[in-house]
């Protein structure tokens, strides 16, 4: 009983969930000029209570934890130290299983009411409609149930539905079946998996940082936060203000990624969280935008008291172990790095203007006084700009308060635009990583409304997506990829998109092993604790202990601490890192969802071939094509996977008794629709003509229709 074994190991002294920074008196919202968009009553949202409970297993053991989710037989809970556990409910006493079901209902009840959702969605439709008709355009025809089904599964659950899931939805006559399906999916664990993929690309989630420092704890932390549906502002604030070592506090991962290049770190976070492009201003006044090098340095100075790497401990460990020939050098180096990479604020802001500073507004070598950028002069008088720069050790906190405030001129718009792109394939402002000029939006009114919705939802990304998914605009049939060089796209509907690498992989995994894959979770962050030296104890004996602990923690399963395997070589070595169910392997492919595989996968893995980012930069995923993709899909391991007799899609089809029903079942598995009568005849005939159902699986997986979402 893995979870309860772990419960027993929990120590009480661990960090409690970081309390959100208190903002002073809530000032009035900045005025946004919204044309034709009356305020929706979304602001009156009920706050969603977190459900804590003492859970008891059948052997009488107890644990205090927060309810995070329930899917079929699996429950996810989170303890106060921030760790999540995922296990079959049948180890719990029946009362607690019942309680979990009640929790699911309650957390749904605490979300936006159907009336609020409908109203906010209607506002989107009205705003899009106004712009469309002003340009003599109209919405695309409503999407069919089949199109909607496939689209919503891919967007909200990250994969296609199984034949059974598809058939159930298509057969239903309930008038609210679309709204109900949306809710079922956004409250399922698959929702967390696809959100993780999306955020991993944005936040550069990697198994190893520079020099092979393992960073699984950052992944675990992010998964935990997503499972608990932590609002975006809190999530970002936790990352920006995180303190301590990566092994103790996974949230430090975001900032530590750039520990050795702090200035780049600042320009990255400006792009990721504000959609502002200051990278040029790092070295010189921006040639094409308004930012100056001084602006950049003044922003970067908020991080000028923060240190990411403890050189003293690195040197100390090196000195202690120099004469110890018996200690494995690689392990010692990793332990040294693991203890050295940490976030700590000193009492001095150390950033100075660079030696080659060439403008008149500051002097080379002078210390920089932290100051916030604004996109217009008026913004500087907003209360949120009233930050204190007196205490260097508080600078990061002050910055985070400004960054994540609803009053920040870009924070809400940036995430709203990115979430919109996730659903529609294009942002309201493109490119999404440069939204300095809001007038570039295809509809500034729509952008303003989405910004308003995300603030009203208190940065709850699930609620915002529920609103979007329920809109007529989202539920319209798709448009061909527009040429933005000719005209702005006004959102007649979502655009036809190639599945992301993760959507394609997760869909193939589910056709191979069914919904089993939704319950396979990879969690490795706790293993990193083995590498931590006790605070203040940098002694040879402790280093030796850490080496021993590390060996044990990473023994056997090949969950090598940042070794080649963990970095994305063979994913098969991960077998021991899984909670819940264990993944199945076929054709050397570990059949777990993309979020539960190495981050990122190795370069030759399906995921990378199909465009999973290398996570060196934010937004590094692509949907570009290449011949090796097609070769792997037709002839390689994935080609074998889709034409395998053990495939769940094929086995589901074999449960049917007529060739026609079998073909229909396979169509539902791969394309989420029934075949046309012509297709049915063609496919059935091919089965009498030397091809097997497994061949039909191969054919359907290789259709363009499978690769794209309409």
């Amino acid at each position, binding site marked *: 009983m893995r979870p309860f074994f772990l419960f027993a190991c929990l120590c009480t002294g661990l960090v409690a969930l970081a309390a959100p920074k208190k903002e002073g008196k809530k000032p009035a919202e900045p005025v946004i000029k919204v044309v034709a968009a009356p305020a929706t009553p979304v602001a009156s949202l009920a706050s969603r209570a977190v459900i804590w409970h003492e859970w008891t297993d059948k052997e009488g053991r107890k644990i205090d934890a927060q309810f995070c989710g329930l899917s079929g037989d699996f429950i996810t809970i989170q303890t106060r130290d921030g760790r999540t556990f995922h296990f079959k409910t049948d180890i719990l006493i029946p009362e607690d299983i019942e309680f979990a079901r009640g929790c699911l209902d309650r957390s749904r009840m605490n979300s936006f009411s159907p009336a609020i959702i409908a109203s906010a969605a209607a506002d989107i439709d009205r705003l899009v409609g106004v712009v469309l008709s002003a340009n003599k355009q109209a919405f695309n025809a409503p999407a069919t149930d089949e199109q909607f089904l496939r689209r919503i599964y891919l967007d909200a659950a990250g994969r296609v539905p199984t034949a059974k899931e598809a058939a159930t939805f298509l057969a239903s006559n309930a008038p609210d079946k679309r709204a109900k399906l949306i809710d079922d999916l956004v409250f399922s664990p698959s929702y967390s998996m696809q959100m993780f993929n999306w955020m991993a690309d944005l936040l550069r989630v990697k198994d190893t940082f520079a020099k092979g420092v393992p960073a699984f704890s950052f992944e675990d932390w992010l998964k935990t936060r997503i499972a608990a549906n932590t609002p975006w502002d809190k999530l970002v604030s936790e990352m920006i203000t995180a303190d301590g070592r990566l092994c103790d506090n996974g949230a430090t991962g975001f900032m530590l990624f750039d520990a050795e290049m702090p200035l780049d770190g600042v320009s990255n976070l400006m792009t990721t969280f504000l959609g502002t492009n200051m990278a040029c201003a790092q070295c010189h006044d921006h040639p094409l935008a308004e930012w100056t090098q001084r602006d950049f340095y003044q922003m970067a100075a908020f991080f000028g008291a923060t240190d990411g790497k403890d050189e003293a401990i690195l040197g100390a460990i090196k000195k202690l172990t120099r004469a110890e020939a018996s200690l494995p050098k690689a392990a010692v180096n990793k332990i040294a790095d693991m203890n050295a990479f940490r976030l700590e604020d000193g009492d001095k802001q150390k950033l100075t203007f660079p030696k080659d500073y060439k403008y008149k507004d500051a002097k080379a070598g002078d210390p920089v006084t932290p100051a916030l950028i604004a996109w217009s002069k008026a913004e500087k008088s907003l209360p949120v700009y009233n930050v204190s720069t007196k205490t260097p050790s508080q600078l990061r906190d002050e910055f985070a308060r400004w960054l994540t405030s609803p009053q920040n001129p870009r924070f809400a718009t940036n995430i709203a635009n990115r979430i919109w792109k996730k659903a529609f394939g*294009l942002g309201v402002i493109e490119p999404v990583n440069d939204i300095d000029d809001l007038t570039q939006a295809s509809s500034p009114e729509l952008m303003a409304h989405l910004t308003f919705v995300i603030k009203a939802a208190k940065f709850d990304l699930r609620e915002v997506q529920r609103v979007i998914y329920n809109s007529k605009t989202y539920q319209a049939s798709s448009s061909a990829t527009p040429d933005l060089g000719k005209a702005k796209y006004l959102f007649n509907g979502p655009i*036809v998109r*190639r599945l992301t690498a993760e959507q394609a992989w997760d869909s193939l995994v589910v056709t191979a092993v069914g919904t089993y894959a939704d319950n396979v979770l990879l969690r490795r962050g706790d293993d990193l604790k083995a590498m931590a030296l006790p605070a203040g104890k940098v002694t040879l004996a402790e280093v030796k202990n850490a080496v021993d602990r590390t060996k044990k923690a990473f023994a056997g399963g090949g969950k090598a601490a940042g070794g080649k395997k963990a970095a994305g070589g063979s994913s098969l070595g991960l077998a021991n890192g899984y909670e819940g169910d264990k993944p199945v392997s076929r054709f050397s492919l570990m059949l777990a969802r993309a979020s539960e595989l190495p981050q990122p996968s190795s370069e030759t893995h399906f995921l990378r071939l199909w465009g999973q980012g290398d996570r060196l930069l934010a937004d590094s995923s692509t949907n570009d094509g290449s011949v*090796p993709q*097609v070769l792997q899909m037709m002839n390689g391991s994935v080609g074998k996977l889709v034409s395998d007799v053990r495939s769940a899609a094929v086995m589901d089809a074999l449960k049917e008794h007529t060739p026609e029903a079998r073909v229909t079942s396979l169509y539902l598995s791969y394309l989420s629709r029934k075949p046309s009568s012509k297709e049915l005849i063609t496919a059935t005939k091919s089965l009498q003509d030397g091809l097997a159902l497994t061949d039909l699986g191969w054919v359907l997986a290789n*259709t*363009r229709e499978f690769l794209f979402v309409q």
Partner: protein
Amino acid sequence: MSILHSANLLRNPEDRRSFIEKCAKVSFGLSVLPFFTRIAEAAESTGAAKAPNAGLPGFGKAKRVIFLQLNGGMSHIDTFDPKAGASKGPGSIVSAKGDMQLTSYLPETAKISDKITVIRSMTAKVGVHASAAYLMRTGFEQRGSVQHPTIGAWAQHFLGASHKTLPSSVTVNRSSNHGNGWFPAAYSPLPILNPTDGLLDTKSPVSAETVTKRSSLLAELDAGFGGKAGDENVKSYNEFYESTFQLMKSTDLKAFDLAAEPAETKARYGKSKFGQGCLLARRLVENGVRFVEVAIGGWDMHATLDDRMEDVGGDFDRVYATLIQDLEAKGLLDSTLVVVATEFGRKPSFEGGGRGHHPLVFSSVLAGGGVKRGYVHGASDAKGYAPEADGVTPGSLHATIAHAAGLPVQTEIITPAGRPMQIGNKAAAQKGVFA
């Protein structure tokens, strides 16, 4: 096949688009970004109608480039820049062809050194492996906010794809690691992690009869969505499947197949990963791949330098000399530039049987592709500690390679993130190396 476009032409969105589609159609990796403006922004920003360096000596002589990466930091003093006195290593100094001196660790290279140019004044500031290797590979210092392309991607941008089915860039014994930089992912080199495996998944695991039946059924069943697609990206994938079917039938794939080499040639290159990698590189450039990187590790000689120079250095020596001779014998050397690159040199002083990292001065070697034969460019001081005069930076080495490859070295492009960039980070090419 040079399709160098003027910036003015590329400023027109329609023309840019057709330019990009033209590149895409002839490339191994076809770009299907959801819209074209992002790539189009990567078009040239200045008004240069043609390369400003066109016509200068050496320009465009190298139709292809083999870029050898000796990972770990090759000791210049123990290889191409031998020193007498306190800095001298365990190897002796020998007179080599082409009126230059090498160490006794490079006996085979000494026989072909009348065909090479040694640059003894390479200089950089970075002494950390990963960052220094990045600098040598791209000509730019590593940054956290941008990834820089290899020469292969620059070349694909300026010259188009180098072959109708084969990739324009390949990495051997290493991952591609964002080699496309800010250019479309389709410009990313194709990684071949194991040269003897070649390109994976080119043969179907099922019978030819089944393949035929499957593909005709695929065409019929995809007629509804794929067949009448109005979407550019769907059409692109249609073409992709088509070209993959053609590729599987074509003889072009033989470029990846070392088994097709005569046994005698295979034996000369040897069985090491470096040997097989260089043989594959030669096959690839011979068949139309423009830029091939071949990586080999083992050069971080902090200890037992003597043994490792014989072992790692010996393998390099045999394979490198074989590659140069083989290219020469096939008549390819004058049009193929072979670059020996390493992240830094090693210290003049010995410590614990080896030498520490030393970026201040080190050596690179160029051969073929229009560079002088039997020539030493620049020099280090008597100790091998610093360049004697102005050093050659990695950026300048890149500008030199780019000049040889016929790329407009001084032409600025604007990246999709709006940043102006040029090959080698504005460094000038070393004109003195060209014949």
